[in-house]
């Protein structure tokens, strides 16, 4: 098979664009290699699990699951309880993960069933569902925690006596998993256990694709009508993919927040779906195709750009805000570009298929 440069560039335009941005910005930023490596390792540990949770719905043909925010909210609620009950360290993280499961399953089932009713418009629907559930989350956390749901500690309650503060400290959980076993390689701190958890999830995803349910999801993702004709319960399979993604997103959010060391109660989850999806797209994934490799390439490139862009912006323009605007503009821009390219490709394929049909006739 001949290597087609044009096709390669067209297929990988987003990662290539980001590689070029990073190549330009890294020397301008003036950051040392060890600093950049440390930052990248930290951000892989923090974000990879969350981004990996997006792979299963893509496999089932549900597109990019903006509804992962629901899992993030479940993780936050679980961490609020853990913090209130004063369960610290690794037991606190494990407890929060288990507590998040029923909430994630409940929200995932709701989201999956709604998405089944809006077939073909899953992404925009999941995006709007995340806003809807965010309203319910605010109602629960702001008004029900305290008077209805018992919260003991004054330190996490608002001064008025009910509702949770803007920030909940996770100081006693902070980096408990990251620091369990960490090794230093050439000045770069590598949290071994966190990487093992991420690798375990990667292996699980690889194994899962080979199971009966995994194969069903792939079949549903490729063609729903054919899958239905083959006896697969399409609706159930799609709901299960969203539930799995939501549960994994909940775990991912807990790992993310234990790394950060605090919860911004009303905003931590709000953009998490957006930046995870942006990172996945930067890694070369599309709406209907994503791999584990895309996740890691995406995390590295996206966050490398995030680290170096503000400093590079300061050097070029003398104003650090330009760099901030630049990276926000790039993040949203890349999602737009990827979605437009996906639609254009789909349109082109459809036209070609129609052309072939006409020729046959």
């Amino acid at each position, binding site marked *: 098979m001949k290597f087609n440069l044009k096709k390669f560039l067209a297929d990988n335009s987003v990662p290539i664009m980001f590689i070029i941005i990073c190549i330009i910005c890294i020397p301008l930023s003036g950051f040392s290699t060890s600093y950049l490596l440390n930052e990248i390792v930290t951000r892989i540990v923090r*974000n990879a699990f969350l981004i990996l949770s997006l792979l299963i719905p893509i496999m089932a043909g549900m597109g990019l699951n903006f509804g992962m925010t629901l899992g993030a909210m479940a993780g936050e609620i679980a961490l609020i309880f853990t913090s209130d009950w004063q369960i610290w360290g690794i037991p606190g993280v494990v407890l929060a993960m288990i507590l998040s*499961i029923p909430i994630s399953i409940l929200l995932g089932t709701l989201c999956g069933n709604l998405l089944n009713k809006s077939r073909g418009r899953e992404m925009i629907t999941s995006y709007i569902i995340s806003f809807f559930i965010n309203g319910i989350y605010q109602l629960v956390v702001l008004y029900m925690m305290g008077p209805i749901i018992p919260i003991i500690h004054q330190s996490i309650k608002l001064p008025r006596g009910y509702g949770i503060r803007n920030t909940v400290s996770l100081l006693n959980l902070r980096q408990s998993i990251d620091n369990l076993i960490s090794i230093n390689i050439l000045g770069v701190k590598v949290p071994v256990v966190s990487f093992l958890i991420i690798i375990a999830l990667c292996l699980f995803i690889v194994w899962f694709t080979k199971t009966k349910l995994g194969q069903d999801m792939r079949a549903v993702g490729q063609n729903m009508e054919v899958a239905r004709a083959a006896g697969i319960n399409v609706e159930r399979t799609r709901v299960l993919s969203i539930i799995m993604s939501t549960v994994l997103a909940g775990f991912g959010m807990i790992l993310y927040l234990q790394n950060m060391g605090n919860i911004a109660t009303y905003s931590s989850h709000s*953009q998490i779906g957006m*930046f995870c999806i942006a990172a996945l797209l930067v890694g070369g994934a599309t709406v209907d195709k994503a791999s584990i490799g895309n996740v890691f390439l995406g995390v590295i490139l996206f966050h490398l750009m995030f680290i170096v862009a503000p400093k590079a912006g300061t050097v070029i323009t003398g104003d650090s805000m330009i760099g901030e605007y630049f990276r926000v503009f790039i993040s949203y821009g890349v999602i737009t570009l990827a979605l437009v390219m996906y639609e254009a490709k789909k349109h082109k394929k459809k036209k070609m298929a129609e052309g072939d049909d006409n020729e046959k006739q």
Partner: protein
Amino acid sequence: MKNNKHILYKIIVVVVLVAICFIMIYIGRGHTLYFDNKGMEVNGTYYNPPYRVKVLIKGKEVANLKDGDRGMGIWIGPKAHLELEVTKERGVAKENIKYDLPLPRKYDGVVINLVGLLNVANYDEYISEFIPLATVTNSEDEEVVIDDLGELGFGE
């Protein structure tokens, strides 16, 4: 039959997860420990504090206390394993003593009087709850900041 098996598996998974939850709640209860090196009366006898007490948790020194000092450390779990390095008087050789101290579950902060602990006082005499002093707070409520479509929280 197959359906019953599935339900049974689900019940087992739920029971195991609930059991893990209880274990985590038991072993993960965190306490802030406050160590007081202050004289106290034990069974009618007044004991003066030692010249210096070093408190080690998991081999790490968390407090180095002279007469009247208070130190602090944290412990996760129902029983604190403490190591005390006691110098009774200046110039006298130090003595290492290990304790496995059960901690009251209901207390977030536990005050341990080391003099009572060293002189075998009753548990209730040398262990007490740490009650933080009420601080003057602004009567105005904290403004809740809700980020719906606003700033980007890109994991900074």
